[in-house]
């Protein structure tokens, strides 16, 4: 499990970098459009198509890393109040549901990619093929499904042995008030 976690972490780090770089590209494109139009009366043809296709990279590639940082919004009130074993059972179920829906979405997104490829789906103005972006989305969701599945397994391990420190270390960090205020 630790090995899988390390591999996933490496992939997630690369992906969030690509997402960050794409955000910079969107910034550069939009700024270039504003300046080119404002100063030289020469708007960049098709920048709408380019930004449209760049958006999924900026908006989705960081999704799995966000899970490792516990950044996805949730309501942990009830879960946190449960006894340890019960908490891990509920958490495992929640992660399992996450793995299931992300796998489903990944397959659905993959079919969307297949149709885009088969039917030459492209953008209206520059006519750029959309299939690479759709494939990227399917892959991101598949990665997220694996990440969820790994966390589900870790929680299951903790159901068996709540004191398993090695398993606990694989989960997103859980800080306390004392840690932060010193």
């Amino acid at each position, binding site marked *: 499990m630790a090995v899988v976690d390390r591999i996933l972490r490496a992939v997630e780090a690369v992906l969030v970098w690509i*997402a*960050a770089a794409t*955000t910079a590209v*969107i910034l550069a494109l939009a700024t270039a459009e504003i300046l080119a139009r404002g100063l030289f009366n020469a708007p960049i043809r098709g920048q709408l198509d380019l*930004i449209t296709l760049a*958006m999924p990279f900026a908006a989705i590639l960081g999704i799995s890393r966000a899970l490792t940082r516990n950044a996805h919004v*949730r309501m942990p*009130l009830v879960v946190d109040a449960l006894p340890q074993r019960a908490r891990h059972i509920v958490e495992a179920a929640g992660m399992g549901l996450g793995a299931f829906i992300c796998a489903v979405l990944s397959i659905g*997104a993959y079919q969307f990619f297949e149709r885009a490829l088969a039917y030459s789906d492209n953008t209206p103005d520059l006519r750029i093929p959309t299939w690479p972006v759709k494939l990227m989305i399917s892959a991101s969701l598949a990665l997220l499904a694996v990440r969820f599945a790994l966390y589900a397994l870790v929680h299951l391990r903790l159901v068996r042995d709540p004191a398993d420190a090695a398993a606990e270390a694989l989960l997103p960090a859980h800080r306390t008030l004392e840690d932060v*205020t010193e």
Partner: protein
Amino acid sequence: MSLTDPAILGVLSVVLLLTLVGLGVRIFVAAALVGFAGLAAMRGFGTAMALAGLTPYAKTATYEFSVLPMYLLLGFLAFYAGMTRQVFEAARIWVGQLRGGLALATVVATAGFSAVSGASTATSAVFTRIALPEMIRAGYAVSISAGVVAAGGTLASLIPPSGILVIYGIIAETSIGKLLLAGFIPGALSALVYVATIAVLFRLKPELGPVGQSYTLRRKLAATRNLAGIALVIAIVLGGLYSGWLTPTETGAAGAFVMLVFCVFKTGFRLANLRDALIETAQVSAMIFAIIWAVLIYVRFLGFTGLPGDIAEWVLGLDANRYVILIGILLVYVVLGMFMDAIGMLLLTLPFVLPTIDGLGFNEIWFGIILVKMAEICLITPPIGLNVFVVHGVRPDIPVNTIFRGAFPFFIADVVTVILLILIPDIVLWLPNQMSG
């Protein structure tokens, strides 16, 4: 009636969604899962899978939505440029000696920072890092301190730039420039009502926090000089928008770019800061867009049940005063807001609320501001309040219910603001009416 009757499915889906969310399942997982399950019940597993699989692409590959990561980046850059701290410092030096001074300073500073931040969540996040530790260190009650950063963040969605106003403008197909302008005075009014709320709270319960140090006028003016940077950004973003250099979507990139230039010329800003700002933007974008597309899978399912259309028809068929209907609609938003996030709620309801509002003869710009204000209220009310979760995300040590408790007085304040906006529509419409030619 059978289990696959659309109305029954709709009710079941709400119950299931609330149960999953209550059990700590991540919101985007719960929304996507329930939406998918509903679609599968209506159209079969394979079709539901293919249909749900369209949404992550369809709801991110959207040009207008590029304004959201740009507004996030602008906010993060402003944070790394030290502007958050400068605004907060200036506010603290001006009002810190008053009763509840640091809380007041936080409200004033979030209002100021809202002029460079287009996202409530991002604003709450940065002030959780800047203002919250100072308040706790100074001995302020944790609850009210966390509540004020959660609520202060909501000002960012009214005072331009604002991501959610842009989304409303896109859906309502109305002038986004006017909408952004219309948010300004209501945003400032909200801040004033927050200020009054804090003044009353700390008068009633002085034990909530101590009084701070007072400073000389010279020191105050010196602190204010540091705000020249933020003023420059405001001038360029708003000036660009109103002079016609920029489309509303482009204000995001222009603001982020101007802030970046400002950062480059600022001593102490490193390339690593830019990298961190970009990576944080990527991560928060992934989180926000996951909710957007997941909620839209759920909305898709609701669409297939036909419930939104039926409800709109029923409302317009009512023989009642239009203000009674309006208040009814707003009450529905209060209920929805308990378990929806702002963007999800807007996307969910606008398709049938807008025709109703039009039919009743209300102004769409005015309603947009009221609605965004309602949506912002949702961000600080339980059980799902995104800003509260964001504060909790930055400070997992502070329990969610503590933050909700601290935000409650500001919920009351927001109700007062909404009533004022309804009674005096000119608070919203005066400024945009000045710009129409």
